[in-house]
């Protein structure tokens, strides 16, 4: 039964190889059947082990646990497993019967799923490095998949900066191996308390956290994210923003758990990093003129809120809840934006008008996504945001900082919503049920997480949300105030078309500068955690 963990990794990979080598005529159907089998296995696995997760441990090859590669699932990894299964379902349905969905595309898509499952389940640091590098390589190919200039340059930018970050992570792994003589995450965590080489542990914490920061696109190492998300095909953007970026967040949690017995005080530093990420994301999101880049920067704003939720709350609960909710609504928005881009043949916000008349179903679903991300009552975004802000009641400064980030991201979506109004200008015939079905399903999931948040959070995350209500008058008022602020800002500041604002919105970090920031970030972390 425990070997299902291996199956979750190798079944997608093997199917991918079969599809690529044999190139069968019905390759997409094969992928869907495989996905169904995988889901059944995952559900059986989770139900079987829900009482005691310590039995999920398997050591590959029958080696001793300290030496061999081992896989382990727990309350943290399983929600991620199910969320990624769900999103891959949606992307597989969305890309059905599309010219993009060649066997090559399916090969990389399914391979990525297997590798991502590996990242989530592994209990071995070097194995984690291998999976992270594999993930980087496959995502690069998927970003550059359309082989146009802008996607290739985004791909190489992503590849090189992520490799640099993951190599920093690898140095940390090596230092840990020489302090502990093992690479097993659980074993290292167990021996961490009172270990002699405290300086080496701190140094490896710094190096590994730098890797996690690059992977999670946190401030100041986020510059690859808007490029990659803007240039990738829309279903890949949805996967990237929904779940791949969360691999960095997952690493952050796992590493913090491992280093927790050493007693490193990371909270203040990463709180500042989270707030900075949120502000940068919110400010840049409002200033974008490209629909996919606006969504990409709003991912940054949400990542900031996620990090605040992770650091401030016990057991990472608020951040984890927001990770899952953000995966849903951001995937919904990217898939919807992909449809709009296909129909209108442009990504420029100013050129898209009248979506409500030409694509009514997509419009409704996009509005559900936008309300969720803005935190309107009765949606999942409201639940997790009020859960996080509820924990900040005692600290007004933090509370208002998060409130400001929210106002900024709401303003971005007020700006986005202009595309739905106006006269229907052009309409290409568009009637693909399999394109709209994923939008409806994800929007349904958003509403379900908003309406039945208590039982869902209880089963998925073991978090008690009974004190968070799905609708309060105060919450509604706060939401309306945010929308009003956002609308005023868009109406009176953005529509003036200030040159400076446009120039700030177009500002991008060059590759060298991003790497310079990587080194500086490493140095700052080193000074903060090792020397002070």
């Amino acid at each position, binding site marked *: 039964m425990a070997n299902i963990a291996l199956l979750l990794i190798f079944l997608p990979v093997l199917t991918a190889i079969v599809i690529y080598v044999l190139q069968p005529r019905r390759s997409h159907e094969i992928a869907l059947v495989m996905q169904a089998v995988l889901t059944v296995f995952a559900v059986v696995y989770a139900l079987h082990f829900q009482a005691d997760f310590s039995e999920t441990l398997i050591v590959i090859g029958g080696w001793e646990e300290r*030496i061999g590669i081992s896989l382990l699932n727990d309350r943290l990894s399983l929600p991620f497993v199910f969320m990624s299964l769900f999103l891959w379902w949606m992307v597989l349905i969305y890309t059905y019967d599309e010219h993009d969905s060649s066997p090559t595309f399916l090969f990389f898509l399914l391979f990525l799923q297997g590798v991502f499952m590996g990242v989530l389940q592994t209990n071995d640091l*070097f194995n984690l490095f*291998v999976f992270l*590098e*594999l993930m*980087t*390589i496959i995502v*690069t*190919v998927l970003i*550059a998949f359309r*082989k*146009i*200039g*802008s996607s*290739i*340059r*985004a*791909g*190489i930018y992503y*590849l*090189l900066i992520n*490799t*640099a970050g993951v*190599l920093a992570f*690898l*140095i940390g792994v*090596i230092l840990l*191996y*020489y302090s502990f003589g093992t690479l097993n995450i659980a074993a290292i965590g167990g021996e961490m308390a009172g270990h002699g080489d405290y300086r080496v542990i701190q140094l490896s914490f710094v190096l590994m956290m730098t890797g996690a920061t690059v992977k999670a696109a946190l401030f100041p190492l986020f510059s690859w994210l*808007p*490029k990659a998300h*803007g*240039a990738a095909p829309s279903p890949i953007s949805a996967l990237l923003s929904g779940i791949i970026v969360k691999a960095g967040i997952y690493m952050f949690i796992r590493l913090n758990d491992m280093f927790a017995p050493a007693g490193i005080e990371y909270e203040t530093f990463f709180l500042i990093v989270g707030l900075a990420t949120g502000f940068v994301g919110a400010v840049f999101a409002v200033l974008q003129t*490209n629909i996919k*880049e606006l969504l990409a920067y709003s991912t940054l704003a949400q990542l900031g809120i996620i990090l605040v939720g992770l650091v401030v709350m016990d057991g990472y609960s608020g951040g984890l809840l927001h990770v899952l909710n953000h995966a849903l609504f951001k995937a919904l928005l990217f898939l919807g934006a992909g449809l709009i881009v296909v129909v209108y043949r442009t990504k420029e916000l100013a050129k898209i008008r009248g979506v409500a008349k030409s694509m009514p179903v997509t419009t409704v679903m996009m509005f559900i996504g936008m309300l969720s991300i803005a935190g309107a009552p009765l949606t999942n975004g409201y639940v997790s945001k009020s859960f996080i802000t509820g924990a900040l009641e005692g600290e007004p400064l933090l509370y208002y900082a998060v409130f400001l980030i929210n106002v900024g991201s709401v303003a971005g979506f007020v700006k986005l919503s202009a595309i739905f109004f106006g006269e229907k200008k052009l309409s290409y015939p568009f009637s693909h049920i399999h394109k709209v079905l994923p939008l409806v399903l994800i929007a349904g999931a958003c509403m379900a997480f908003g309406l039945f948040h208590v039982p869902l959070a209880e089963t998925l995350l073991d978090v008690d949300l009974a004190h968070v209500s799905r609708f309060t008058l105060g919450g509604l008022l706060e939401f309306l105030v945010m929308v009003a602020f956002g609308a005023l800002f868009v109406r009176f500041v953005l529509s003036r078309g200030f040159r400076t604002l446009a120039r700030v919105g*177009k500002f*991008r970090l*060059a*590759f*060298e500068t991003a*790497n*310079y920031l*990587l*080194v500086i970030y490493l140095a700052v972390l080193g000074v903060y955690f090792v020397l002070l």
Partner: protein
Amino acid sequence: MDPLLTFIVILVGFYGLATSNNIIKSVFCITIIESGIILLFLNLGNFEGGTIPIIGEDVVAIVDPLPQALMITTIVIGSTVTALALMLCIKLFHHYGSIEWSKIFGKGDAS
């Protein structure tokens, strides 16, 4: 060899990443960092008078075999990354006629 020397190799790689405008040079800087890491790991696992870790007769003081096994994996991954990056470089040269970061990101839309 002192492990600190390998740290210098790694730092040279990061310095190159932060300063070079040429994509090929950036790719090679990644390779340099990787070589530094491999040297560091093998160095830390080695000791004076250790023999190769192959079990046989009269083998007494073998070096730690794990770093060597792991570093082979790192080399494989590194070569994959290098190959992919260089392939993307060729494509970029066909599209933009240049392999300099500033020229490639200066053209077309800001993304």
